[in-house]
């Protein structure tokens, strides 16, 4: 008889539970990430951003969601109907599936695969099919150009990004995401400090892979209107947008796991700094206090209510983080709750830098983008992999310390990078003769 006990202990129970939570929470999370992006953008551009729906626009994601779902869904007459229909779903599914293998905390993932990192990279790369097919099926020149650009761009930068990941993998010695984090705990240093160049290359490549500015050429609004999404509207467009954000979370998570120490607290192996454990509850407490302080200042009763609700949510989170502190230090639950906090914090910081560069830089041109990828990032990444491999050999065979070996590897890579970047600026292409 299938009692509750049996169900809970079934091997599929936890994965399915995580899956359901992911599917339910993610759209909301993505909505708030978009709100966050708009708020950060507004702050950098000397304006306020969404302020109307809810206090400080806190309900804007819900309003947007309702509006977009009720919007008319237009399929162009000449479009290839079922591919047009299936394309956003492919992209979204790929992003969600990749998220399944990401460990948000110790033991807090759907599946710890032996080939976890490769799996995440492989599956998130499948999203490109949705983009390419969607662009093709729209039967519009803008969409097609966007799709072609996207395909070329993602495939190119995957090489550089993959190479950068290899430099981290060499240090970690495993493909399992969980063991990569544990390796960083063992070394006592996040890999971003050991292989800063690798992290930088991955950062640039991840911006390009997720089609974010300054590499947002596939959807460059000033050139291709909206690129592959030009003909999409309503809910299908939302799915594309959600997939884009989900992909950003995926690349941020991969970077967090591989370079930023995953769910580890800063200085996780330094016992003297254990007071950092009190940071999460304190942070949420401060947030809650701020929300409470703002509550009476809201003009309308319902806005007061919403603000108070957010204050209560923050208070609840502070309570949860604080309660976890009362558990014994080696408790799995405590590790999961605090690990989740640090992991998400790092992901948000990574995403923040995405936003930051988006609002600062102009957009690359396509040939410049390709040149940057193939003529700079990929050679540097390859040299970096070789340098790190040699440094590890030095460490194993010649008994060098970790830091000198890695410092040497970084230095060598930087020299090569400087040599590559310092070469004479060639024109990317020669404009053909007028009238030709």
């Amino acid at each position: 008889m299938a009692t509750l006990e049996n169900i809970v202990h079934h091997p599929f129970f936890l994965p399915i539970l995580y899956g359901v939570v992911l599917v339910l929470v993610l759209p909301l999370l993505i909505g708030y990430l978009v709100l966050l992006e708009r708020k950060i953008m507004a702050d950098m551009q000397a304006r306020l951003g969404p302020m109307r729906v809810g206090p400080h626009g806190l309900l804007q994601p819900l309003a947007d969601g309702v509006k977009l779902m009720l919007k008319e869904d237009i399929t162009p007459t000449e479009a290839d109907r079922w591919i047009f229909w299936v394309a956003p779903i492919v992209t979204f599914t790929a992003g969600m599936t990749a998220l399944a293998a990401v460990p948000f905390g110790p033991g807090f993932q759907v599946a710890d695969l032996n080939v976890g990192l490769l799996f995440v990279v492989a599956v998130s790369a499948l999203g490109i099919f949705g983009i390419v097919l969607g662009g093709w099926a729209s039967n519009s020149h803008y969409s097609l150009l966007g799709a072609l650009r996207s395909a070329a761009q993602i495939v190119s930068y995957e090489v550089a990004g993959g190479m950068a990941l290899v430099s981290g993998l060499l240090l970690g010695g495993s493909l399992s995401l969980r063991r990569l984090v544990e390796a960083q705990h063992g070394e006592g240093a996040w890999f971003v400090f050991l292989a800063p160049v690798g992290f930088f290359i991955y950062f640039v490549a991840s911006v390009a892979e997720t089609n974010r500015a300054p590499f947002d050429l596939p959807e460059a609004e000033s050139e291709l209107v909206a690129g592959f999404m030009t003909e999409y509207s309503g809910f299908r467009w939302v799915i594309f947008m959600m997939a884009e954000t989900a992909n950003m979370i995926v690349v941020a998570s991969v970077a967090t796991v591989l370079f930023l120490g995953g769910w580890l607290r800063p200085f996780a192996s330094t016992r003297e700094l254990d007071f950092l454990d009190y940071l999460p509850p304190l942070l949420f407490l401060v947030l809650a206090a701020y929300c409470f302080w703002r509550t009476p200042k809201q003009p309308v009763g319902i806005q007061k209510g919403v603000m108070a609700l957010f204050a209560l949510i923050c208070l609840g989170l502070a309570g949860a983080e604080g309660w976890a502190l009362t558990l014994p230090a080696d408790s799995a639950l405590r590790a999961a709750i605090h690990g989740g906090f640090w992991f998400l914090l790092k992901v948000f910081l990574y995403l923040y830098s995405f936003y930051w560069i988006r609002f600062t830089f102009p957009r690359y041109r396509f040939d410049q983008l390709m040149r940057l990828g193939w003529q700079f990032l990929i050679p540097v990444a390859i040299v970096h992999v070789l340098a790190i491999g040699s440094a590890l050999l030095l460490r194993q065979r010649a008994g060098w310390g970790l830091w000198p070996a890695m410092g040497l590897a970084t230095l060598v890579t930087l020299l090569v990078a400087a040599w590559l970047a310092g070469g004479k600026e060639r024109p990317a292409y020669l404009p053909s003769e007028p009238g030709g």
Partner: protein
Amino acid sequence: MMDLVIFYVLAGIAVVGAVLTVTRRNAVHSAVFLITALMATAGIFLQLRAEFLSVVQIILYVGGIMVLFVFVVMLVNLDVALRQVQFNRQKWVAGIVVLGLAAQIVFILTIGRTQDPGVLGVPPTPADQLSPNTEKIGMRLFENYMLPFEIASILLLVAMIGAVIMGKRRI
């Protein structure tokens, strides 16, 4: 039991995808179904405890080769091609091949199994022999198959140069 269900679902997807691949009129549709079939195959690799190969299949086959295919199909997409006759008159050749293969299946299923089972007669080894999969493949690849590995890389290099030359407008 679970294994069997998973296998039949994946195999069904693969076979249906394959059939649709060779019968669709529009090459883009064919590519989509081929991707489906290849993904199902990746699932079957996973079931066979070949995790690394499964991911390689997704990265290389689906994420690399098929992107190339879709790309080229989009470049040479012709409305004219859709309206032309899709099949040539080699149906009888295909028929003979199918018959030959059917005969082989019958042979394997009946005579082969009873008379000389070969490796199939040996009971399958336990699954944990193959794990940790990535490490095993890595060790074997770089210890026993170093030369083929290098030859394969040269093959890829040659293919890359060839493709670039082919794609260039003026040689």
